[in-house]
């Protein structure tokens, strides 16, 4: 395995975060989905956002993507306080969000999908320029797409994810948000996407990775931010913590079903060794 994280050395002291959220809250009717959340994303860093169902991950992503604005709290982007009222405002700032459903047009080819809504050329599209730039981009990401002139429908899950991520880079963002990028993928394809995430980090982008899969988080993330019931519930440098610590933070206590079972298994193993 070479998919071990290269934990970035003490970036926080030297570099300012690209994006910080302070005291961000959001409620839906009677439900407080997020309360007083803090989050920082630094350039060249993969931050994993983890938490159980209903922890508020999606709400947080939607605030950053401009789907719905926060009720209170501040978001600063490159040091300036910003307001993100709409998806296009989010894109214009330099936040690229790849949603779980990828939002690709199956009937169009890879080039058309990459440049959808941002086509090059004047009245007539400049297909040649778009095609060569597509190749350039896909090569930079070492993406394994055999041809950019085939319909996206005929690509595998990992390739589709690759196209969606590559598309997010067309607008030259400073932050890429990936919502469950490996959820529906097989082993090899997951590895491909994880490679891709590392390449985004190498490009100096801040990556916010939302994932349920802690193996993936441990493989690529530098930091994990845990949400629980709409609140910050711990922040870990991946290099310093164990799987169990993160689980404990996600579920809210060391004393819970998961950790009790782990402890029981552990105890049983010890028993056997004796």
């Amino acid at each position, binding site marked *: *395995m*070479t*998919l071990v994280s290269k934990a970035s050395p003490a970036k926080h002291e030297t570099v300012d975060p690209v994006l910080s959220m302070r005291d961000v809250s959001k409620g839906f009717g009677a439900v407080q989905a997020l309360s007083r959340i803090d989050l920082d994303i630094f350039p060249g860093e993969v931050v994993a956002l983890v938490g159980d169902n209903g922890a508020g991950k999606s709400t947080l992503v939607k605030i950053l993507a401009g789907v719905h604005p926060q009720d209170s709290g501040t978001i600063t982007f490159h040091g300036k306080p910003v307001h993100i009222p709409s*998806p*296009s405002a989010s*894109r214009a700032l330099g936040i690229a969000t790849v*949603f779980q*459903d*990828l*939002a*690709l*047009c*199956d*009937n*169009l080819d890879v080039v*058309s999908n990459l440049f*959808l*809504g*941002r*086509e090059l*050329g004047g*009245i*007539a*599209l400049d*297909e*040649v*320029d778009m*095609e*060569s730039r597509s*190749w350039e981009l896909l*090569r930079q990401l*070492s993406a*394994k*797409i*055999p*041809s*950019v*002139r*085939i*319909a996206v*429908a*005929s690509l595998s899950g990992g390739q589709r994810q690759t196209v969606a991520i590559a598309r997010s880079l067309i607008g030259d963002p400073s932050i890429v948000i990936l919502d469950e990028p490996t959820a529906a993928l097989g082993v090899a394809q997951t*590895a491909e996407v994880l*490679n891709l995430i590392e390449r985004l980090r190498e490009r100096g982008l801040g990556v916010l990775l939302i994932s349920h899969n802690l193996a993936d988080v441990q493989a690529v993330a530098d930091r994990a931010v845990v949400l629980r019931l709409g609140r910050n519930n711990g922040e870990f440098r991946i290099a310093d913590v164990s799987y169990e610590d993160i689980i404990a933070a996600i579920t809210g206590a060391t004393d819970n079903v998961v950790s009790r079972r782990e402890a029981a298994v552990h105890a049983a193993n010890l028993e056997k060794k004796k």
Partner: protein
Amino acid sequence: MTQTPTPVAESSTAPSDLQDERLIRPVGARENVAAQIKRIRTGDLGALPIVIGLLLICVIFEIITQANFLHATTLSSILFLYCAPVGVISVGIVLVLLLGQIDLSVGSMSGASAAIFTVVYTTGHLPEWACIIASLVAGCLVGLFYGFLFVKFSVPSFVVTLAGLLSLLGLQLLVLGPTGDVIMPPTSFIVQLGQSWYLPWWAAYLLALIAAGGYAATALLRSRARNRAGLSVPSSLGVYIRAALMLVGLVVLITYLDPPDSPLGGFGFPAQNDGFGVSTAFAFLVVLVVIMNYALTRTRWGRSVFAVGGNVEAARRAGIRVNRIYISVFVLCAFLAALGGLMEVGLLGSATLSTGTDNVNLNAIAAAVIGGTSLFGGRGSAWSALLGILVIEAIQVGLDQMQLNSYAQYIVTGFVLLVAVIVDSLSRRSRVAAGRA
């Protein structure tokens, strides 16, 4: 497991889009032909079934009618002439189908437009061009209204245009009410265009030359641009062969249609001077299809239409102004329906209470589907309007020549539509199996 970023072969001689080792690259004539056959077998049929169907129809009718069907007179004065009005309407239907929507009111719209045009012309003492513009503007307004209702209230287009079908039919009866049928003077521009204008022989041949030359020129220019960008280039021999075949085919067709006074003459088959050449209305339809094809495949608007038809949500998130696309397409469709209505007036020389009511609606929609445009949005081409309407009119002309009543025409057209849809879904299935989709 190791990370092996595929090395970008800087020194590699392969064009940058053909470097993946998994790509199958046919070399030489035999492998190219084999690749084409495989493409067709795996469901990438293109216009093949429809062309084969058209040939079959021609052969069958030619045998049944004892060589009357392909007679130059029939082809030039009936088939191509009658294709034009509904063909124009069908181009609009292709657009709405590409969005995955439908316009059921195109027949009524064409009838209403015909009524407005003739009544304004005969009672308003306005110049003809003003009356034409009045009708077309009416069409645009109706389309704008459809688009508005669809976008603002999310009323399904099926229902909006069904309501439009009834209301516009009422409008047609209202406008024509006091006068009943209106007969246009044969000297009017619209009637001349619809009935009696044929391209002079030199213009027809010139158009053929422009078509083939234009194809070759754009293909070669694109090759040069691709070459400069380091992308693969299709063989220029292939381009020349295709352009030459296109030119020969068009010249043979035009010569067969036997334009009057042409120095080349007809083929003297079955008799000398029996055709009229290429009708202007048909040439207009072909030019319209070429322009629409360009707009759909090479412009930002066309790309957006396909994107919205394929996945509205994805298009919206990509920043496409989805509502504008919907409205533009509804306006264009109603505009083309109004234009088709005017051409119908020209063809029949009059506007009646039944203009556009008969089977214009269904023929226009069937033509688009028979031509290969999917009913589910996102797949299709402007050419399907032309090919589809040729099939439908060929069947009607052939059955007319067999002196069969309209019942047979309805049954056969319905059957052909069914076959076309079955071929479409079969090819979709094998496309999916072969990973083309």
